[in-house]
C-alpha cells in the first residue's frame, strides 16, 4: 500500500502531523510496538528537517507486511557536507528554528540509528532525497 503526504516549509505548528497519521496506520497493521517507535522517531526527524531546512517536500510511505519504506524528498537547498550533517550535535539550524525548540543536531544521526537501510542523495543547491527501509520482526 502506498501513502503520500506533502510537507510545507516553515510550518512548525504542523510538524509531526504526517508522523502521527502514519503511526495510526502502523498500529492498525499490528506491527510490533518497538518497530513502530523507531519508524516514527526516524520519520519525525525527517519531517522536521523538511520544515526547518528545506523549501518544502513530500513523504511517501510504501507498506508491505514485512517491510516499511519511507522516501522523504524536498526541493532543496541540499546538504553541502553530508558527513558533518550526520555528526551528532552538528546543526546548521538558524536561530529562529532553534527558538522553536528544534535544531539540536540530532536529526540525521537519529534517523541512521533507527532505520535498517538509509540512503541519502543530496548536494549543495539540489533537492535531498532520503530513503529509509525498516525490516519488521515477524509475528507481531
Amino acid at each position, binding site marked *: 500500500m502506498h501513502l503520500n503526504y506533502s510537507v510545507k516549509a516553515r510550518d512548525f505548528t504542523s510538524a509531526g502531523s504526517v508522523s502521527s497519521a502514519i503511526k495510526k496506520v502502523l*498500529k*492498525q497493521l499490528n506491527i510490533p*510496538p518497538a518497530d513502530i517507535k523507531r519508524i516514527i522517531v526516524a520519520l519525525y526527524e525527517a519531517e522536521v528537517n523538511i520544515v526547518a531546512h528545506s523549501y518544502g517536500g513530500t513523504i511517501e510511505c510504501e*507498506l508491505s507486511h514485512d517491510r516499511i519504506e519511507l522516501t522523504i524528498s524536498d526541493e532543496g537547498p541540499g546538504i553541502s557536507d553530508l558527513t558533518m550533517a550526520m555528526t551528532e550535535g552538528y546543526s546548521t539550524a538558524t536561530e529562529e528554528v532553534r527558538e522553536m525548540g528544534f535544531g539540536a543536531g540530532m536529526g540525521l544521526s537519529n534517523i541512521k540509528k533507527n532505520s535498517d537501510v538509509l540512503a541519502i542523495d543530496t548536494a549543495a543547491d539540489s533537492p535531498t532525497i532520503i530513503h529509509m527501509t525498516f525490516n519488521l520482526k515477524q509475528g507481531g
Partner: protein
Amino acid sequence: MDSRSFFHHALTVDREKCRGCTHCMKKCPTQAIRIINGKAHVDPKRCIDCGVCMDVCPHKAIGIEQERFNQIFTYPRRVAIIPSLLIGQFEEEYSEEQIINALYDLGFTDVYYGEFGADILRVLGKSTSGYADETPVISSYCPAVIRLIQLSYPSLLPNVNLLRTPAQITALYVREKLEREGVDSEDIGIFYVSGCAAKVGQILTWKSKKNSLIQGGLNLDTLCNILLESVKKHSVNDKERRTYHPVPFITEQSFLWSLVGGESREMSHRTLAIDEIHNVTEFLELVEDDRHEEIDFLELRSCDTGCTGGILAPRNRFLATQRIRYQATKHPSSIPRELSDEILSFKDTLIREIKGERFPQHHALQLDTDPQRALVKLEKVNEIEKILPGIDCGLCGYPSCRTLSEEIAQGNASIRSCCVLKMKHPKQFSRLEKIWGDVIQKR
C-alpha cells in the same frame, strides 16, 4: 492471560432505558460503543471504563455494577479503606469525625485512609517512581489510564510504574497488622470505596483472582447516601455514643494525594500532572514519539480534576477538591515515631509485596493479528471510506464513517448500514454489493 479474564468491566447498559441516541457512542474516547438494534453495546475489548458514556447519557441508561453492602458481614473483621475523596463529598457541616464514626456505625470494625499507603511508603524510604523500566515513569494509580495504555499505547507499558497503589499498600499493612494481633487471615474482609467505574472494575478484576488483597468494593455514591442518613441520625444523640473512634492517621500531604499534582509532588526531578482523558491521550501520543522533552514522572488521570471528577463522586468536583484541601490542613505534616516504628516492623513483608504484577499488552486497534492480512484489510478500509459520505452522522450505529469502513472491511458490518448512501443512491446498492460483495454481511 486470555482476553476474557483480562478486564472486568463495571459499566452496564440498561436496555430498557437505552434509546440508542448515539450520545455515548460519539463521546467514547476509545470508540468502544456501537448501536446495534437500537441499543448501545460496549465492546469489552476497547472499553477502558473511563465513565464518559455514563456522564453524557441523557436517559441514565448507563450504570455501574455494584456489590451488595451486606457482603461486609461475611467477615468478622470488616476493614473499610476509604479515599480522602469520601470526606470531600460532604459539606462543611459534617465533620470528618462524624463521617468516620458513621462508617463504624454501619458495621465496619476498622477504618483506614487508602492514601495512608503513601505515608507507609515514605517510612519505608521507597521512592515511588522506582519500579519502571523506562522514563518517563507513568503513574499506575488511575486504572482507566492503564487500560488505555494497554489497549492503544502498548509500547509505553515498560514506562508504567509497577509499585502498588497507596490503597493496596494500606491493605497489605492492615492485613499484616491484624494477623499479628492474632486475627485469622480468613476472617479479615478489606473493602475499598471507589469513586469511578475504572476502580470498581479493577476491584472486581482483583477479586476474581486468588488471594486478593481486597475482598470487595463499595461504590462511593451509594455509600455517601447511606452515610448521610446515618450521620443525620447519630448527630442528635452524639453524647450517648458508647465508643468514639478517632479519625484514622494520615498526613496532610497524603490526604491531598488523589488531587491533581498530589502524587507528582512527591517525586523528585521534573514531573507533570495531566488530568482528563483527552489531555492524557494527547500527551501519550507525544511520549510514544519521544517528544515529551525531559519529563521524569507523569501523573495521568482520566477524570477532569483527578479523582474528584470520578463518575461516582456525587458532589461538584471543584467543591469536593476545596473540602479535601481544607480538611488536609487539619492533619499532621509528619508521622509520629511510634507509628513509623510499627510500620518498619512490617518492613520485610511490605517490601516483598510492594511491586504489583506487570500489565500485559492488550492491543485492540489492529485490523488483523497478521500484518499481511491487516494490510489487505486496510486497503479495503481506505476504498470503502472514499464511498461513504464522511459526515460521521452515527445513524449506522458506528461512531464515524471511518469506523464503519473498518467494520465492513473486517466483515462485521454491511455497507447497507449507511443511511445517507441509502437515501442518496437507493439503486446503487446492488452495484456496491458487487464491488464489496465479499465483505457484505447482513447484521
